[in-house]
């Protein structure tokens, strides 16, 4: 049985629906990537699942962890899961840490909350965690304040705090976006190393397709509050089927090959208050026809595995990696 099972998850803010029924299963120890442009509902999915959205949000559907329902559950029930079984880290580590408390105290707070450790035991465990996430001379730096750490080290401290509850699932929301390239590589390396050691599952929310392909087993592509394609990373990255997925790949400049013009996706993500009729991607899609503008495609199991919500998928024989950027017309 899968560890987390999300079914028909919907979210609406002030009557505007932003999530239109998300179905997602995550197995124990699995790493899932969630990609898409900003405003597609990647973060909202998990904020809703963990009950972290503001009161005005209307959340529907079901999120089960080991069979236990989280949507509509009492606050104490959700709090037993949040931080303890499912931990979350965010994009900007310096704004997630409390600037007026020493980092050691902040890590120990999670340890007390989730594992009942106090005093010397908590301190020893906090030092072990800081060691684990690769902060040098942890024993002395435990008494420093967040501003005395660099951005990459703050993110390591956040990871240490997230690991304090020994979670079964870590949700990393754009964990490397605010960091420098060489530090991004370090943090991704650290996350996959920790996953290998602890066997925890991970959800990596990222707009960096390269990062997702480097650390995830499976990836889901979101557009305008729906999952439009989902597959094993190997299959998804070698032959994306949804025109949106394909567009995302094509828009990335190459680091080798020719330096022709980039291939953007025209237009922008639709405003959730004024979603187009039919498939939400149709106005930006090159292969859309009248059916796409009137009916919304349902996600269906593809021939080569995975899920796909598209009437006119990209032919799957087209190998992505070998195609040059500026294909002559």
């Amino acid at each position, binding site marked *: 049985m899968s560890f987390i099972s999300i079914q028909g998850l919907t979210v609406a803010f002030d009557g505007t629906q932003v999530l239109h029924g998300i179905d997602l299963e995550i197995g124990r120890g699995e790493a899932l990537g969630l990609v898409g442009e900003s405003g597609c509902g990647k973060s909202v999915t998990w904020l809703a699942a963990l009950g972290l959205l503001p009161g005005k949000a209307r959340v529907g559907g079901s999120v089960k962890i080991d069979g236990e329902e989280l949507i509509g559950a009492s606050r104490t029930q959700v709090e037993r899961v949040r931080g303890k079984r499912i931990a979350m880290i965010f994009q900007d580590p310096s704004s997630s840490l409390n600037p007026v408390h020493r980092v050691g105290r902040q890590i120990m707070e999670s340890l007390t909350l989730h594992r009942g450790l106090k005093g010397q035991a908590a301190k020893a465990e906090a030092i072990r965690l800081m060691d684990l996430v690769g902060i040098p001379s942890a024993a002395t730096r435990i008494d420093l304040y967040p501003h005395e750490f660099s951005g990459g080290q703050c993110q390591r401290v956040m990871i240490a705090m997230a690991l304090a509850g020994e979670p079964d699932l870590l949700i990393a929301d754009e964990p490397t976006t605010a960091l420098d390239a060489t530090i991004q590589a370090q943090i991704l390396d650290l996350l996959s190393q920790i996953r290998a050691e602890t066997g925890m599952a991970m959800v990596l929310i990222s707009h960096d397709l390269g990062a997702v392909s480097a650390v995830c087993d499976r990836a889901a592509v979101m557009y305008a509050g729906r999952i439009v394609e989902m597959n094993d990373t190997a299959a998804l990255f070698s032959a994306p089927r949804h025109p949106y997925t394909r567009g995302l790949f094509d*828009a990335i400049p190459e680091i*080798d090959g020719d330096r022709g013009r980039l291939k953007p996706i025209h237009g922008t993500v639709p405003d959730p208050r004024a979603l187009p009729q039919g498939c939400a991607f149709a106005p930006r899609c090159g292969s859309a026809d009248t059916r796409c503008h009137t009916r919304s495609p349902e996600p269906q199991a593809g021939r080569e595995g995975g899920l796909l919500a598209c009437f006119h998928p990209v032919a799957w024989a087209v190998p992505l990696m070998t195609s040059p950027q500026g294909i002559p017309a």
Partner: protein
Amino acid sequence: MTALLLEARGLVQQYDTSRGLFGRATSVRAVDGVDLQVNRGEILGIVGESGSGKSTLGRMLLGLERPHDGQVLWQGQPLPAPYSAAWRSLRAQMQLIFQDPLAALDRRMTIADQIGEPFIIHGLAKGAEAMAKVAGLMARVGLRPDQAGRYPHELSGGQRQRVVIARALASSPRFIVCDEPVSALDVSIQAQVVNLLRDLQEQSDLTMVFISHDLKVVRNICDRVAVMYLGRIVEEGPSDVIFSDPRHPYTQALVSSIPKAGTGLSHRVILQGEPPNPAARPTGCAFHPRCGAADRACALEVPVLELNRGRLTACLKLRATGAQAA
């Protein structure tokens, strides 16, 4: 040889800071001796991690900051002092595009007014003529005429960046410094803006300095790239070769740190340690504490940027192998 438009000679920028209320004043060298030539009509990329002095260098090239030492020559003449009348008139020819368009735009002015403001400041056009020029600029950057009366918050991130670009183009500049112009945008929109910048450069023979930490974007748009580490250029070369054959150990690590779709983490050179603090510069080569190839000599001698086997690099190890080969 292409015509030189802008040249930096031995640029140094130093900021004084104090530690705590009564702390001793220390100085931080953000840029530490940079020589750079920008040729007419080329796009020069400057890459490096945060704190490497990229933005400070860009600001000095425009004369927005007076260098602590060294000078900037515009068409062979030293830049006039910042905020002097001569500098202001020169500024019509030199523009800056920032990372965050929302911060660069005035929230209380319509975008047409903001795009037209340079016409008034530089006395280039007014009234109906200015209006017509604004409409022309909006069309050039791909904004619809009906968006003229909108305010910045009513536009998407990509559209706002188009407004900033249109405004920068208003005074028909010859030189533009783009400081992380696409870093805040999604990849699909990023590609739109990069293509726009490329088109504009070709149409009006603009010269650009493109500052970014995104190596893939830099490689796509730039003709030549300078890699900075802690205030110095460590490698410089055409973008076709610098990413396919990086020579300096730092450039090699940077190139290797780019996640590539479909490959795991295994092939990557993962640098140990943090980007160093400019206030506590290591002795010798600033990169040596993180460098796999460094030895004792690297901690003692500061390598200069010089031609080693056909590439401008600042590395003692590359110089040594070059001498052996010769």
